[in-house]
């Protein structure tokens, strides 16, 4: 028990003493997770919108693939991208392996199915009269899409927030594509795993507490969005 209290005290002082290493790790995590989520939103929201509104041959297969990708283990994504980004891989010349950009790319692959699927679900659960109303008021397809996104903004934003929550808390991709390089690609999750393994419990605990606060913040945003929609 004494050990736990001491660990908490040390973690507390690392956080409120604005320890440079801790905050660099937090910054790296936030940077790669937000950039990956942002890119996944730019690609995934329009794709989800089109999938929700258009019927085409092979749509059920696309849906099954998307659902499968949502349940994909992060280490599998990491492994696949490692094969592509490693020197012998087809994208090896880009030099992205063990860089923050490499992690962001992996997290983008992880976030994309989540954003697409949840956007699709958000739009499908919208009032069907919304689609008719947009058409009958004379909107072009682009104007319709923009209005539908405006009307489902709470649910679509919730999809993006869920994706952010997933990528900021994952460890497999960050470890495999980032390499956990101190001062460069070390993220909160990889640092927690490493420091705990080394017996440096305080740093791990401090980062764990920050990660918990980030998770709390994300859930608070989700709660507010759901309340806003109701």
């Amino acid at each position, binding site marked *: 028990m004494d050990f736990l209290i001491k660990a908490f005290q040390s973690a507390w002082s690392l956080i409120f003493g604005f320890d440079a290493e801790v905050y660099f790790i937090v910054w790296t995590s936030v940077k790669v997770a937000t950039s990956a989520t942002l890119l996944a939103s730019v690609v995934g929201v329009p794709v989800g919108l089109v999938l929700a509104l258009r019927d085409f041959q092979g749509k059920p297969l696309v849906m099954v693939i998307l659902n499968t990708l949502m349940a994909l283990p992060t280490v599998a994504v990491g492994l696949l991208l490692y094969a592509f980004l490693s020197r012998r891989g087809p994208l090896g010349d880009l030099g992205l392996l063990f860089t923050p950009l490499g992690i962001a790319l992996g997290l983008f692959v992880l976030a994309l199915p989540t954003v697409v699927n949840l956007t699709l679900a958000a739009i499908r659960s919208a*009032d069907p*009269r*919304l689609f*008719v*109303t947009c*058409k*009958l*008021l*004379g*909107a*072009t397809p682009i*104007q319709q899409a923009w*209005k539908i996104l*405006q*009307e489902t903004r709470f649910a679509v934003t919730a999809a993006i927030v869920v994706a952010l929550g997933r990528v900021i808390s994952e460890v497999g991709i960050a470890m495999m594509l980032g390499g956990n390089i101190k001062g460069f690609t070390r993220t909160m999750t990889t640092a927690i795993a490493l420091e705990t393994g080394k017996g440096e419990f305080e740093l791990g605990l401090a980062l764990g507490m920050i990660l918990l606060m980030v998770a709390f913040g994300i859930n608070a945003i989700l709660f507010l969005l759901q309340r806003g929609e109701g």
Partner: protein
Amino acid sequence: MTPAYSVEGLEFGYGPCPVLSLDRLEVAAGELVALVGPNGSGKTTLLHLLAFVETPHRGEISLFGAKSNRKNLLAFRRRVGLLLQKPYLFHSTVLGNILWGMKLRGISGARAKQSALAALDRVGLTGFENRSASALSGGEAQRVALARALVLEPDVLLLDEPFTHMDQQNVQRTEDIVVHLNRDRGATVVFTTHNPSSVQHLAHRILHLFRGRLAAGSPDNLFKGDLIAHGTVFDTGRIRVHLASPVAQGTCLSIEASQIVLSPNSAQTESPNVFQGRIVALSQENDQIRVEVLAGERFQALVKLDQAGDYHLGQPVTLFLETKGIYIF
């Protein structure tokens, strides 16, 4: 004069079976048409097709002489206004809702706002412009949706059951708006209702829709069934009606109420279209009595007011169907 709508061989369905099947329909420019039919008869579907928000599976719809196709769909939609029975209002203010349609047409600024406020005034919602659309009652939302359609000055206005949930004052107001739009602006108006007697004073023409088809004759006695015996007999499953001449196809039977002769006595006759039944309802309708008789099917017949004393509830009666009042479609 070019008709507002010309519909040919229209078929539409949500599954394999068509819910709407119209051989031909024309609505003259500037006409005010009431579309009457029971729930599920295809009234709303027809309005959606006429508003070009649904595409027919077969057939063609022409608007003012031009056939609809993928290229002109948007232009056609912008000439037609449709008021849904339960309209959808966007999650914004009342004014925001009305301005959006104008914004799509490139109208904005003070001119757009002025038109929107005038439209709100016409539907009796002056001062509502800054209210949240989600805070409105059902009736208010319907009037905002009407203002949203009116502000776009459509050539054709389609209204789905516009008077169903309105109080008398707003029914009158909406009727006045419809009449003004039709008479003064020359707009074509088509509206649906399930109560034909309430709109007789308003409509130039009343069309009856029954099970997705335009009903021939009167809507009083409409039955679904099949032609048998080489098209000489119509079988509803409960009764068989003999036709004057063979009919090639049709799944609906219409019998004019005025062509049903009632006899208070139990009559023995060789005539094929004679049915025995009993009276289940009586009501006065202008200078006539509407008599409902259960005789296999539920029939409605009309008798003169001075014969009212001959009929009472539960009384056994004989029905004679005049063949000239029988239609198959």
